[in-house]
């Protein structure tokens, strides 16, 4: 294996980033939202639709969404991808776009997503089939799968519901510093513990939001990035691992594919977890940041619950995690992974307002898809 561990370290950069319609965005379609975010991200970069020759998107209800958004924007892309790795798709797109840019196959990649399930409820038929091996037992999808993983973590490592609640409270405290976050009212550990249980040990306050939102980023090669309107954010590493589809086939309920993708992405970047200033880790449920902080190497396996305790990942804590308020308190329209990347870019550029970190040189964005099934890790730097 080459020194670059299979990735063109720092040879591509994110040069545009935007969000749109976070919270409630009624009266428009999902593709309207994705297109709006795409135009905002291009304007942010100082680029136009005419520059775009690759499109990466995951439509919420349209299996052929790549063609849909391409048509809508009047593009004729050389590369279109709408992969099916759920919320991790956008971190995978960064990996794939970097490789295509480096190869010279494309010159400008647009990664976009929009979804408004809160204002424009999805049709009855979903994009996934019911597992014949799980559905008869009526797990609530997807929360019961995450609850099973949480039960195992608690059993093996003594993780407590109060430690899970710390994740929700930290997210809310960051959200209170982010005017774009959808839910900003105060939240306490006791309120999380007293909330209605959905699937033990997870209560309704252990679950991410299900609201509206759109986001987009634009990537080009690093040499061209210097001519763009904003500080380019180099992509240092991007790696992916899929371990299963359904929770009953997860090889180890307390070790995710992040234990594969994380070390690989860090090796590509030439950094370790100790170097990271900002960890944007997919918080679909309060258990997921605990698992990912362990698997990415921020603490030993099993120590995640104790690592997040006492406000350690809240503002002023030992590690900045999910500074936009996360899927738990900012936005989660179904597939959240692109919002992780946008927040990392904003922090690395130094434009995060009241929640801006004093030191923001290196960030990791870790996306999750399915039921801890697909894990993708991207390392970004302040250029």
């Amino acid at each position, binding site marked *: 294996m080459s020194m670059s561990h299979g990735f063109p370290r720092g040879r591509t950069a994110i040069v545009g980033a935007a969000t749109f319609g976070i919270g409630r965005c009624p009266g428009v379609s999902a593709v309207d939202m994705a297109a709006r975010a795409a135009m905002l991200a291009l304007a942010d970069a100082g680029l136009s639709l005419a520059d775009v020759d690759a499109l990466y998107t995951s439509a919420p209800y349209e299996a052929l969404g790549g063609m849909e958004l391409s048509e809508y924007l009047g593009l004729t892309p050389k590369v279109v991808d709408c992969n099916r790795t759920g919320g991790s798709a956008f971190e995978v797109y960064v990996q794939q776009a970097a490789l295509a840019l480096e190869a010279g196959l494309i010159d400008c990649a647009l990664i976009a997503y929009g979804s408004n399930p809160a204002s424009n409820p999805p049709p009855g038929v979903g994009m996934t089939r019911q597992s014949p091996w799980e559905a008869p*037992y*009526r797990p609530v999808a997807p929360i*019961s799968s995450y609850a099973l*993983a949480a039960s*195992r973590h608690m059993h093996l490592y003594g993780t407590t519901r109060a430690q899970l609640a710390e994740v929700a409270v930290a997210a809310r405290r960051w959200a209170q510093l982010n005017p774009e976050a959808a839910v900003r009212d105060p939240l306490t550990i006791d309120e999380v513990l007293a909330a209605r249980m959905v699937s033990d040990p*997870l209560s309704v306050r252990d679950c991410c939001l299900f609201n509206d939102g759109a986001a987009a980023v634009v990537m080009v090669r690093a040499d061209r990035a210097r001519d763009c309107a904003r500080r380019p954010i180099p992509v240092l590493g991007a790696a992916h691992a899929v371990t299963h589809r359904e929770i009953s086939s997860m090889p180890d*309920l307390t070790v995710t594919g992040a234990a594969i993708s994380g070390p690989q992405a860090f090796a590509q970047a030439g950094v370790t977890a100790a170097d990271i200033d900002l960890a944007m880790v997919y918080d679909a449920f309060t258990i997921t940041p605990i698992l990912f902080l362990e698997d990415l190497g921020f603490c030993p396996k099993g120590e995640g619950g104790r690592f997040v305790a006492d406000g350690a990942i809240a503002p002023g804590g030992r590690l900045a995690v999910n500074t936009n308020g996360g899927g738990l308190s900012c936005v989660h329209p179904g597939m959240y992974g692109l919002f992780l990347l946008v927040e990392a870019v904003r922090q690395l550029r130094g434009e995060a307002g009241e929640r801006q970190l004093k030191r923001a040189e290196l960030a990791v964005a870790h996306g999750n898809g399915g039921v801890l099934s697909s894990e993708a890790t991207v390392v970004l730097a302040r250029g």
Partner: protein
Amino acid sequence: MIHPEAEWRAHLAEGRFMIQRSRSTGGHVFYPRIVEPGTGADDLEWVEASGKGVVHAVTVVRKKDPADSYNVVLVDLAEGPRLMSRIDGADVDAVRIGMDVAARIVQEGDKPLLVFVPA
């Protein structure tokens, strides 16, 4: 030619809990498929499961009326594979990780369903 799910369901309808085993590797497979995952061994045969298992993970799905709440578990079979199921014959809050359980085939509606009971 093997028809994995159809054959499994036919066995279940006859009151038999069958899993697959590779003749060459000795590995047991569940859910049923056309090759052993990982090895690709395609010499799978049906064998009767011992029905012995241990609860690996548990959740309780909570309903407005507590009487409607129910458990969902992952069970490690003695033969190795893990599967999703439900523990019958125990209070909904009494199911614990590490519990020894035994397979039962019950009728759920008009279909047979594999569940487990405390051993």
